[in-house]
């Protein structure tokens, strides 16, 4: 097991190296002078020279790259052109806002998706199975922004049950510790705030959960159907084991491996690409942050944002791979 983990972690280095080179090169892929583009047509030569120096563009390529990586390793993600602030400090709260939203959305998606898939497989070719499959089909085909708008219309405008935008009620600011507001409010004993934060996260997380939920339900179903035909499931039944245990213990554990792959992929997508949902729900997340930076041609922010998203992807992959080994004893040995 340890050898497997070490091997898997060593494999990260070339990936991270490649990513850093790619992200670093973004600035050179822009046609024309980056400093000029950032500052606009009417910038003075002095201002351009200033920005070039700030970006290190006057240095040779490899020195620039080593400086860049050196900075990254000390946690310096560069300086925003627009706000002149450190990108790391600005990005962090946005990142955690997105992480919180993703965790809640994926929890919903996994819980409902996996169980729907199991029930669908268990009651194969019954009404329940067809119902789940229809919902899953609708789920994957529904545009998320449309679903978000409908949610807001129904639950915020018509019924006034839930707030439609932002993370909290503006009057009661959360004192950030981890920047995961659900946790921050809880550890500070602010239960009224906790409830408020929870109410705010429901609509966006449900909207975000739909597609992953539908995909997870489908994969779980087909994987379970395969497993339930296998000889060892017949063996378990021949022992007189209850149907529920056959399904949730013997079958699910075997069926879960392809499901984990999909969960990792979907979580990665939500962390990096929920721009539309974050915009609709006024969620101050990473997607919004990068999107705004693109609008403003704030290249250091764009670079670091992409790097952070890509790194998260890589680490989610690592976690999924390590979980494989936890679930399947055969993986450790080959």
């Amino acid at each position: 097991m340890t050898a497997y983990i070490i091997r898997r972690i060593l494999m990260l280095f070339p990936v991270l190296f490649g990513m850093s080179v790619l992200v670093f090169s973004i600035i050179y892929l822009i046609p024309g002078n980056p400093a000029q583009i950032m500052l606009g047509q009417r910038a003075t030569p002095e201002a351009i020279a200033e920005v070039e120096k700030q970006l290190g563009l006057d240095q040779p390529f490899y020195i620039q790259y080593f400086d860049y990586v050196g900075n990254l390793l000390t946690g310096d993600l560069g300086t925003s052109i627009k706000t002149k602030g450190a990108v790391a400090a600005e990005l962090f709260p946005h990142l955690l806002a997105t992480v919180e939203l993703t965790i809640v959305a994926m929890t919903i998606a996994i819980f409902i998706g996996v169980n729907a898939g199991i029930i669908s497989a268990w009651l194969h070719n019954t009404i329940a199975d067809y119902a789940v499959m229809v919902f899953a089909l609708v789920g994957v085909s529904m545009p998320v922004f449309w679903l978000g708008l409908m949610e807001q219309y129904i639950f915020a405008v018509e019924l006034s049950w839930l707030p439609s935008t932002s993370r909290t009620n503006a009057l009661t600011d959360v004192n950030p510790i981890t920047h995961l507001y659900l946790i921050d409010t809880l550890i500070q004993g602010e239960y009224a705030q906790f409830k408020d934060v929870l109410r705010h996260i429901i609509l966006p997380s449900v909207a975000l959960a739909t597609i992953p939920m539908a995909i997870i339900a489908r994969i779980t179903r087909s994987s379970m159907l395969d497993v339930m035909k296998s000889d060892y499931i017949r063996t378990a039944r021949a022992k007189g084991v209850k149907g529920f245990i056959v399904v949730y213990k013997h079958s699910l554990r075997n069926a879960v491996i392809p499901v984990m792959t999909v969960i990792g992929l979907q979580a990665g997508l939500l962390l990096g690409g929920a721009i539309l949902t974050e915009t609709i729900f006024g969620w101050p997340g990473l997607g919004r942050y990068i999107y705004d930076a693109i609008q403003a041609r704030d290249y250091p922010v764009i670079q670091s944002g992409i790097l952070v998203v890509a790194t998260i992807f890589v680490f989610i992959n690592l976690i999924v791979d390590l979980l494989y080994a936890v679930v399947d004893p055969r993986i450790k040995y080959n």
Partner: protein
Amino acid sequence: MLKEYELQVKGLRTSFFTDDGEVPAVDDVDFYVREGEILGIVGESGCGKSVTSLSVMGLIPKPPGKIVGGEILFKGEDLVHASEKRMRKLRGNDIAMIFQEPMTSLNPLFTIGDQLVEALLTHKKVNKKQARQKAVEKMKLVGLPRAEELLDDYPHQLSGGMRQRVMIAMALMCDPKVLIADEPTTALDVTIQKQILKLMRELNKKLNMAIIMITHDLGVVAEVCDRVTVMYSGKVVEESDVKTIFKNPQHPYTKGLLASIPDIRDKVDTLYSIPGNVPKPGSIKRGCRFAPRCQFAFDRCFEEDPELYEVSEPNHLARCFLLDEEGEQQ
């Protein structure tokens, strides 16, 4: 003293309802097995041996499968109409089964120990420690070395022969009254086959357990069984005690099977084999199922279905018109 019937199967019919219509995989099968007895069920591949045993266990995949007729009596209790809950109580506890495929019949993600104790924890009031002790005891019984260590191994760490022994140990965990062994040795090499057969015989003597030994190999029958039922295309074609079948086979199919047993004393290299193939169940609608391959077939064989006729010896039956004393022959 007449021994008690542990399991009686009467007129069992199990069909699969597929897109091409009904496939009568088991079509009117009778057999019984008594306490302490080993019954052999023999027949070529596809004749319905596994479907018969899965029917007894209540494990026919449905859909598409269904028991469409007949009775399965365990100590007189009807199992065909028993509730799933009742069947669950019996499975693994009173009736246990060893499957044909040792490589795939164990769950790859659970340890041998977990899988062994499961039946015991399901059916008996024992704690984990007692269950593990019992597992070690059964593993030793089936001749598995270093039983304690094996408990924490996973199936992929074991050879095919060891896995099949684990399957046997697993089936024995609750000391079942009836053990159905579906070709327990087919997937294994000859030496291990010999060991496992010897083991089955010993277990039968030691535990006085009724065993149904399913095989396509009459050599296995000769080695371990007391009585034998020969199946062909979903039907029983001959039934008798083992001595009789080897001395005085009546059904042409049984004779063919006997002729095709490899004999070490035989100097001839080429083995006899019955010409033709087992017909797909349901493909022969009328007449004796064996007629297309039978060298004795005559007109009547293609017109009517033969019944099981009694042969002169006691408890010897065969499904062939050649034994019909009243009817015309040739």
